[in-house]
């Protein structure tokens, strides 16, 4: 099989796979033509059954940005004045952890909680919550501090409470020991076994309380509650008087780290303030998206029409390459989990307009070579060759610009806004994909279908 034919089939294959990927989950079909009425709902199959094996097909969804599905984005500032400088980064991470856990409990799908450091002493959190119907509730949830406390398990009560979780929880007797008395928690390694353990250090008051509790309840279970939910249920082995405790258990290093962060999360109180808030209702996003998609489709149609009118058969092939481009790009968005925002859609459409550019460069070159008297096939090859340099230059500049917009290294002197990033990412993917379709796809199609006669 000629090389071109092989590439052709590769392209067809990719296109078919991509088309499958972009199909939405359900395609309702409501159709009435005189007596014929069709009312079916095509549901995309989630798995293939071949012989006896069922293969689950990967389920890629298009991630929609906040400006499309509605939601809230807040930038939180933290007041680190009461935290020692060396503890600040940890404090920020624990605040992030706490907020993330709470937001999970709140039931938000795919929440985003990021840390961000601006300059020397400005520690921030960026929280994105999609589909929030009550922003105030979310803010209250995030704003309150985590609460750590210790409770003794009343063994007689717990023995009886086998029926419900609530009863079980009620079988714990609260003590006065809690996050307020915890000075610090960190990961340590057991002297003898070398296993990771979590070390707790209480302040003076805590030390006394802890000594009392552990001597009075030796052998019982002292539960550690975080945010009203039991975190750990270790048994008290001996009375502890120095205000330090080691929580042993079969921790992996990760588990120990997590626990110490969580405990610190309870211990370190970082006041949070809202520096920036953006809430967008779902309806505004929906309308915008529909309008933009409509505009995009019309735009693509016009571009294709233009190409066919101006360049004839070559233009038709380029239009096909354009469709392949659009299909591939959206499939890539789904696979890579690119979050689509409205500026992102604009970026996609812009890159469609630019995708045709490489083709136009090639065609115009070809026209010149033909005018100079070159035979058709030569003209085609020369067209590709000479145009490539210009294509490379131009796209390089656009790639550089999109990198600056995306700010992949999170450089603090450049923007990190989600909207701008969305545009940059779609622009970048667009440029790279269009290089592929513009050069490889068009070339292959032309080599296969346009046989020069001269």
């Amino acid at each position, binding site marked *: 099989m000629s090389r071109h034919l092989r590439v052709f089939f590769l392209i067809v294959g990719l296109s078919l796979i991509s088309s499958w990927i972009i199909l939405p989950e359900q395609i309702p079909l409501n159709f009435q033509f005189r007596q014929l009425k069709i009312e079916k709902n095509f549901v995309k199959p989630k798995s293939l059954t071949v012989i006896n094996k069922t293969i689950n097909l990967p389920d890629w969804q298009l991630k929609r940005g906040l400006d499309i599905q509605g939601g809230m984005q807040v930038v939180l500032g933290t007041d680190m004045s009461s935290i020692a400088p060396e503890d600040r980064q940890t404090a920020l991470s624990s605040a992030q952890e706490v907020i993330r856990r709470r937001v999970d409990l709140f039931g938000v799908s795919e929440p985003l909680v990021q840390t961000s450091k601006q300059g020397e002493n400005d520690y921030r959190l960026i929280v994105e919550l999609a589909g929030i119907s009550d922003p105030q509730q979310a803010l209250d949830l995030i704003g309150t501090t985590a609460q750590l406390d210790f409770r003794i398990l009343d063994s007689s009560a717990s023995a009886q409470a086998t029926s419900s979780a609530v009863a079980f929880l009620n079988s714990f007797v609260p003590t006065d020991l809690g996050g307020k008395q915890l000075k610090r928690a960190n990961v340590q390694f057991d002297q003898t076994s070398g296993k990771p353990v979590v070390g707790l250090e209480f302040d003076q008051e805590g030390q006394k309380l802890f000594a009392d509790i552990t001597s009075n309840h030796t052998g019982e279970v002292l539960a550690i509650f975080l945010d009203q939910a039991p975190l750990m249920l270790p048994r008290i082995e001996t009375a502890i008087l120095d205000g330090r405790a080691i929580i042993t258990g079969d921790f992996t290093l990760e588990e120990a780290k997590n626990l110490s962060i969580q405990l610190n999360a309870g211990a370190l109180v970082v006041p949070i303030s809202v520096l920036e*808030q953006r809430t967008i209702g779902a309806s505004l996003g929906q309308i915008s998206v529909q*309008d933009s998609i409509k505009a*995009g489709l019309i*735009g693509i149609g016009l571009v294709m029409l233009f190409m066919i009118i101006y360049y004839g058969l070559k233009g038709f092939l380029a239009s096909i390459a354009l469709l392949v481009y659009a299909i591939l790009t959206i499939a890539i968005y789904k696979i890579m989990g690119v979050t689509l925002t409205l*500026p992102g859609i604009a970026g996609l459409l812009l890159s469609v307009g630019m995708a045709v*550019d490489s083709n136009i*460069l090639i065609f115009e070159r070809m026209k010149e070579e033909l005018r100079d008297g070159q035979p058709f096939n030569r003209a085609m090859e020369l067209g590709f060759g000479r145009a490539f340099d210009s294509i490379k*230059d131009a796209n390089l*500049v*656009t790639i550089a610009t999109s990198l600056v917009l995306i700010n992949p290294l999170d450089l603090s002197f450049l923007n990190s806004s989600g909207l701008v990033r969305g545009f940059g990412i779609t622009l970048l993917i667009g440029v790279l994909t269009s290089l592929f379709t513009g050069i490889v796809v068009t070339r292959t199609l032309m080599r296969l279908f346009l046989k020069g006669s001269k």
Partner: protein
Amino acid sequence: MINIMKFKWLFFGISLMFLIPGIISLLLFKVRPSIDFTGGSLIEIKSQALRADKEFVKLTLQADYQISSIQDSGDDQIIIRGQVIDNQSKDLMLAKLKQKDPNLTELRFETVGPVLGKELIVKTLTAVVIVSSFITLYVGWRFNELKYGVSAVLAMFHDTFILLGSFSLLGHFLGIEVDVLFVTALLTTLSFSVHDTIVVFDRVREKQKKVASVKYVDILNAAVLETLGRSINNSMTIIVMLLSLAILGGQTIKWFAIALLIGAVTGTYSSTFTAVPLLLIWDSAKNFLKKKKK
């Protein structure tokens, strides 16, 4: 061969026709920065009743909230801009407004603290500086001779000022604001404009290599004629797409699309009709100075 370059002063004239009003506007009215840059808050609500009676809105809210503007948006929405407030205060304000129109819906609420606003200005300026420098260095490196780099950069400035100028005018007469997306459109315009300019310069260089003895002005004319078709077609596709977006597309990115559109048009124009005549002027000036030295 048509001597297009003969008309270079006409081309500059056309450019000035667009540049001068823009620059005057920039000096007099500057631009309208959005809350992204200045800090403050913005509430967009959907309410026919309130849109018809903005006085009521002003009076009701004035006590607790310093309003800077109330604008119409879309078919039945209004945008209220003012000082920074928190979520709770905003809810209270809307509750008051609901007394007049219980069907009021909150579409959008944004509030930006002043610190973040200032930061953003610095960040976006940094981005613009980085991209422009990269472009200048890249063109300089690719084309070795100084005149190409300088002409490309001047064309870039030309496009930038026309874009800024238009938005200054739009800001003054229609209240259109300059936000982060505008800066993004500006950067994209820069890259697009250079893209186009490079294609023309490539052609000039190619021709120079082939026939070194031909007069520079003839080379330029030939290069322009040859690339003009391609340049226009290419821009056509982009402009068609952006026009479609600007007219039919979503409300929130309308002005973004328009900024990109203005950028695309000036970018195309400047590549052929600004950058190339500049090359010619540079070349003629150099020759003139050479002759004087002798």
